[in-house]
């Protein structure tokens, strides 16, 4: 079964994503910020990491870097509600750091599930 680590500091978003992923048949662990994500990642292995970018304690960009350092080739989906301001596009940065897919909040959950299915079908690196 595909194991997913979900990272978002917004409880509503976290809960709804958690629910939809569970009902889509994935094994999900949900955490509040990047630090918890990295800690969880050290303890257990995940096939896909879905992470927000702007978070307290440890932001999504750092989280992506550290996770890929711990296990290169991990599939990552980045999402953000604040990535379209001025010249800095966090999602572009996330992609450059190694994220496979990115979503601007708010996005359609069906698109997300489609993306996950696509990633899960790819052979692990």
């Amino acid at each position, binding site marked *: 079964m595909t194991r997913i680590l979900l990272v978002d*500091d*917004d*409880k*509503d*978003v976290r*809960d*709804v*994503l958690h*629910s*939809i992923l569970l*009902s889509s048949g994935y094994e999900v662990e949900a955490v*509040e910020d990047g630090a918890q994500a990295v800690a969880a990642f050290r303890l257990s292995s995940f096939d896909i990491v879905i992470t927000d970018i*702007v*978070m*307290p304690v440890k*932001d999504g*960009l*750092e989280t992506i870097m550290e996770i890929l350092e711990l296990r290169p080739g991990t599939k990552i989906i980045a999402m953000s*509600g*604040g990535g*379209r*301001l*001025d010249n*800095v596009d966090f999602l572009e940065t996330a992609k450059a750091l190694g994220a496979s897919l990115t979503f*601007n*909040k*708010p*996005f*359609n*959950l*069906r698109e997300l599930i489609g993306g996950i299915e696509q990633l899960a079908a790819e052979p692990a690196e």
Partner: protein
Amino acid sequence: MAQFVNLSNSILLMTMLMLAFSWALTSIRRSLPSLQRFTGMLMFTGIALIASFVIIPLQEGVILNRGAERLHWVDPSAATIVIALAIVLAGVLDGLVTAVAVAVLAYFLNGSLSTVMLLPVLYSVAAGLVVRHFWGLHRDFISSRVLLLLGLALSLPQAVLFYSHFHSAPNFEPKAMLASMAVIIIAYPTAALVIGNLVSQPYHQILLENQLLDTQERNRQMVKLAGNAIVNFNADLEVIDYNEEAERIFGYPRQYLIGRKYLSLLFPSYIWAGIETDAQRVMDGGQIREHEVQVVSRDGKETPMIWSFSRITNARDEPLGMMAIGQDISQRKRNELKLAENEERVRLALSGADLAMWDWNLATEEFVTNDRWADMLGYVPDVQDTDVASWDERIHPEDRDHVLACMEQHLSGDTDSFEVEYRMRRRNGDYLWVLSRARVIQRNEEGQPLRMTGTLLDISQRVASEQERRRLERQLRYSQKMETIGTLAGGIAHDFNNILQAIMGYTTLGSTRLPDDHPVQHDLERVLSASDRARSLVDQMLVFSRQAQQSRALVDVEQLCREVLRILGPQLDPREDIEVVLDIAPDSPQILADPTQIHQVVMNLVINALHAMKDGGGRLGISLRRLDSAAVDLEQTGLAEPPAAWLELVVSDTGCGIDPKHLSRLFEPFFTTKSVEEGTGLGLSVVHGIVTNHGGAINVDSEPGQGSRFIAVMPVHGDLAS
């Protein structure tokens, strides 16, 4: 027979003259050395002139060198030997003077200088020059063989000349002619041999004496100028002489020490006893070489010296005395000292540079290290054994593969040197970052490494500062983030998008949980489409707010503060435990700013203050005052030029205060100590963004349990300052 006797008489006469000459030459040389140069010339000239009167009668009626018509008084034939010998023995000038004298004599006494007269003179000069050139006295002693050759050379043209005269004589007798010619050919070499030997004798003696004197002088100079001290002792071991170098080292003038037994003055008494024994041993036939003895000079200066003592004997092997040759080795000692100092310096430099060194002999597996190496790894020098195996075990597991691969590459000759940074385990288990540099310094013919040396430099500090730099870079990224989202619109947009995500997400979730034909599906579709409209509205709002940010208006901050208190009235009024103190200085100026944003600043700060006092109450303070231009450090603000004045806004509370560890991150976006439900954590980052966007600065003073003071300053435009 008569002519032979005549000739012999002539030779005898010349011999006698030569003997007299050589005696005179010797005496003159001894008594009047200055005349020596001329004695040869005078003597040879005199003898040649006398010899010119010797008429050689070869046969009755036939007289050599006498013309038919006229009697010649002078005949140079016999003088030719003297001329040639003068050139060979005395010198070219002496010989030429002699030859000219003979020619002049012949010219005056004979009345003319016929060819017959001149030719023998010229010929003898030529022969003399040739012999001198090849075998002259200035090169070596004249041998009898050379003298015979000279005589023969002189006799041959004489014989030819004689024959040409004899042939035309009226009473020509071939037999008598042959006999006479034989006499000439025998007599000339004989005369040359006898006279030459006699005359060269004193010259030989002069030569020998000169050579001896030269050798003596050379030896004297050699001893005098020798770089070594040389001391001569007689058989009783009294000093006879010593050279300049010895004089320099001893510091005593020669006359002071000469004649003294040994040189006891020069040596400390405890050394002297040994030297005395040694000297006696040398005189008994022994020899002492390379004996290091310190010499104390007259002024007390000590000179380290190496001495060799040898017995000197004469040709019959009888002892003449002893010679001591000593070398001043103070320079060498100084060099040795300097070398030792240099080594110490290199050692210090290496330890000063904190370089640990190692030397690995791959053949014997010997691994030698310096003290710093042990020190660096937490060992006591000299108290541990270190083999190569322990080196690679020491490398941090994460670095090991890479380090060993690099080492393998260098050992196999693929790389010129080995240079890697890695972590090395210390004795106590800690890891130390080191820069390791090494190189194979010896390989066998097949290129296999035999010996390798290297250094280790502790770079923990550098690595730590690199980590610090990375931390700072991270902070910089945070501050960039703060600028990006830390604006009012950006913060709202971010939060709003998340709320929309939740709305849209739950709507979709709900939709999936209902059958597709359920009547609520249509309603949920409407929620999703309305959410889409909200999303585009957020985008539009962002565009609008970025334009609106540029606008500035006159803002009365006092009025804004009162407005905020009024808005918050429903929350404040029920709180009887909170006292609100508004302290507005009368000269508080207006500022040029975005009224909505300044409103947001006051609102956020006051809400924060109330939140800090939610348990236990306290005093909420809001104050405004004017500050002079110089009162604010420009570096805190984004301004290049100081404004005319500043407006200071202080919002204070007597609440719980802020934990010092949070102070540094207080203005970061999404940093919050509140639970997720209570706030987004954007508030203070928005305040920070607005204040700095207006060219101001914001700081916070806080004591846990005592409360906090947020102090914002904003520039006042020139016209508004007064």
